[in-house]
């Protein structure tokens, strides 16, 4: 077997494994909020996550994948020795996989995105020289890690405030919920569809003009809204449910909205996080196939397909269990705030996906939760844990880097 075949098989296997890990572990954070509020059963959540993680990865995962694949390292610096890039990308995948295994074994709050970016930058500095790193792009990425939780927090704050003003703090919350919840549903469907149409779909051969994109997005929004309104109309408003908690019936209406935003967050997560697995894999495969490092080469659609399949496999085999555990622990988030968190986070993540910025869905979601907290909407948040989650990336970057340097020399020793 020649080296090229080995590289491709290795890259494929490692990429699939990373995607599996994302499906097994990370999806739970995105879906946990929906299960915690008892809107979806575990089975339904896994089904929704499976479908929308896959479509997100396949339809809208291209931009971030391309950033990971060729946005961080300046390929002209390695044009003389393309196999160095292959070793590095393989090393990054192994390093990220190992680090995530260690972290999840110890329950450390570590983000896949930060690990893979740290790994790629790490091997590039040591193996290719600091000049090979596109520092401006890395700067953008790091900045987006700070901006994304803040943006999503602000969005969640205002979303929840609007819910208070329009629905909860009024004389007839039930009637107002029936009136305004479809608007939020429309916004969710429209936003997801629009970003996907603008930024995705090119690789499956569908090109739309701006006007067409808006039209299709409005259409998608309306279809989702119609479905939502049908389910809202079927809700049985039972005044006796309000005896202990006066907003029980209002929350039932928000539950429909939360199903929609759960789809959105799964889609957003798939669109951004698939790149962590298939980005390095795509780089290896294109270099191995063509023998040269090319900035222009297009990425075959089947690479995203593998990523999507990997995530769904991880979800089905192991993620179910994690989702159940996470859902059990998040019981304080009612649908009226769960939706605000999910919509704010998925909007932020989908925009990042469209811009090609790899960000952490979990961080974005934590930012959103804090936003609702600042609107005085959540009983109690553990700030110590929040701090740990945000601080962990400072440790994750060097950890990913050191591991990937180690594996880079390992691969170089074997194949070089």
């Amino acid at each position, binding site marked *: 077997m020649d080296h090229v075949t080995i590289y491709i098989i290795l890259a494929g296997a490692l990429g699939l494994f990373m995607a599996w890990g994302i499906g097994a572990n990370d999806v739970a954070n995105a879906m946990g909020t929906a299960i915690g509020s008892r809107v979806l059963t575990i089975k339904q959540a896994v089904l929704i996550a499976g479908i929308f993680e896959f479509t997100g990865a396949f339809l809208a995962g291209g931009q971030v994948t391309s950033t990971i694949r060729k946005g961080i390292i300046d390929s002209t610096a390695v044009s003389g020795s393309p196999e160095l890039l292959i070793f590095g990308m393989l090393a990054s995948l192994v390093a990220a996989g190992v680090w995530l295994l260690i972290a999840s074994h110890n329950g450390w709050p570590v983000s896949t995105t930060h690990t893979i970016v740290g790994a790629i930058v790490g091997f590039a500095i040591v193996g290719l020289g600091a000049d090979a790193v596109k520092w401006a792009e890395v700067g953008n990425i790091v900045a987006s890690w700070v901006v994304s939780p803040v943006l999503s927090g602000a969005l969640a704050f205002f979303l929840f405030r609007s819910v208070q003003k329009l629905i909860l*703090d009024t004389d007839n919350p039930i009637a107002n919920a029936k009136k305004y919840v479809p608007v939020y549903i429309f916004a969710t469907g429209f936003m997801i569809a629009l970003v996907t149409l603008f930024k995705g779909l090119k690789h499956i051969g569908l090109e739309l003009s701006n006007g067409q994109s808006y039209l299709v997005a409005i259409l998608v929004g309306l279809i989702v809204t119609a479905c939502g309104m049908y389910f809202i109309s079927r809700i049985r408003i039972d005044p006796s449910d309000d005896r202990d908690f006066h*907003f029980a019936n209002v929350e039932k209406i928000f539950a429909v909205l939360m199903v929609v935003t759960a789809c959105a967050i799964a889609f957003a997560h798939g669109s951004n996080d698939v790149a962590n697995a298939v980005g390095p894999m795509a780089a290896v495969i294109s270099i191995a196939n063509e023998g040269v490092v090319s900035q222009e080469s297009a990425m075959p659609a089947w690479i995203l397909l593998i990523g999507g399949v990997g995530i769904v496999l991880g979800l089905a085999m192991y993620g179910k269990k994690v989702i159940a*555990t996470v859902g*059990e*622990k998040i019981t304080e988030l009612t649908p009226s705030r769960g939706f605000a968190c999910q919509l704010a986070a998925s909007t932020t993540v989908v925009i990042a996906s469209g811009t090609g910025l790899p960000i952490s869905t979990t961080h974005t979601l934590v930012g959103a939760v804090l936003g609702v907290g600042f609107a005085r909407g959540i009983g109690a*948040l553990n700030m110590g844990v929040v701090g740990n989650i945000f601080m962990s990336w400072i440790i994750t970057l060097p950890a990913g880097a050191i591991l990937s340097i180690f594996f880079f020399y390992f691969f170089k020793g074997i194949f070089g």
Partner: protein
Amino acid sequence: MASNYFSKIFSRSPFTAMQEHMTIVNECVHQLTPFFNAVLERDHVSARKVYKEIRRLENKADTLKKKLRLHMPKGLFMPVARRDLLELLLVQDQAANQAKDVSGLITGRKMEFPQQLAELLPRYVERCVDACQQACKVINELDELVETGFAGREVEIVASIIHELDAIEKDTDKIQIKIRATLLKTEKNLPPVDVMFYYKVIEGIGEVADIAQRIGSRVELLLAK
């Protein structure tokens, strides 16, 4: 090896626990009605039985209070100040303590009340128990307040419940004045030491309503921010 660190950011809401605590306190204070019924009928055996129940409930509230405090560590981000909530909890707990103290005093001294007082006391006790019931109603709105983010119409609802609580407390004050006046008229014919303790009991019962009112004003403080 589930990486459920995300779920750990959600702490159990202290507000539902505050409500559980208040429910027990309310139950404890409610025992004052059967307790005084027994005392006024000079049925010391039944009175002692009810007193034991009061003590049990007071203990239960105490345990829950301690547990709640442990669940409210400093690093918690809540819609209201942690200190305000802990102080509210303390006041809630005092209501149960007060019920125990009054009933304990009567049980310990095997007190019996003269006819003139026995006529007025049931109504007085009932209104003080009402005040506690009303305070419980205020506390029961806490989860609704969290739901609405401590704003809007729900605040008005709570304010009106507190308003009614204040009215009940005023009512108990009026009854107290009347009872004192009655006692003043007859005290010369009664054993002085007993009279001293009658005043103490009258004051003690009224204190339950005062504490209930303080619960209301503590909640008002939560709303003010």
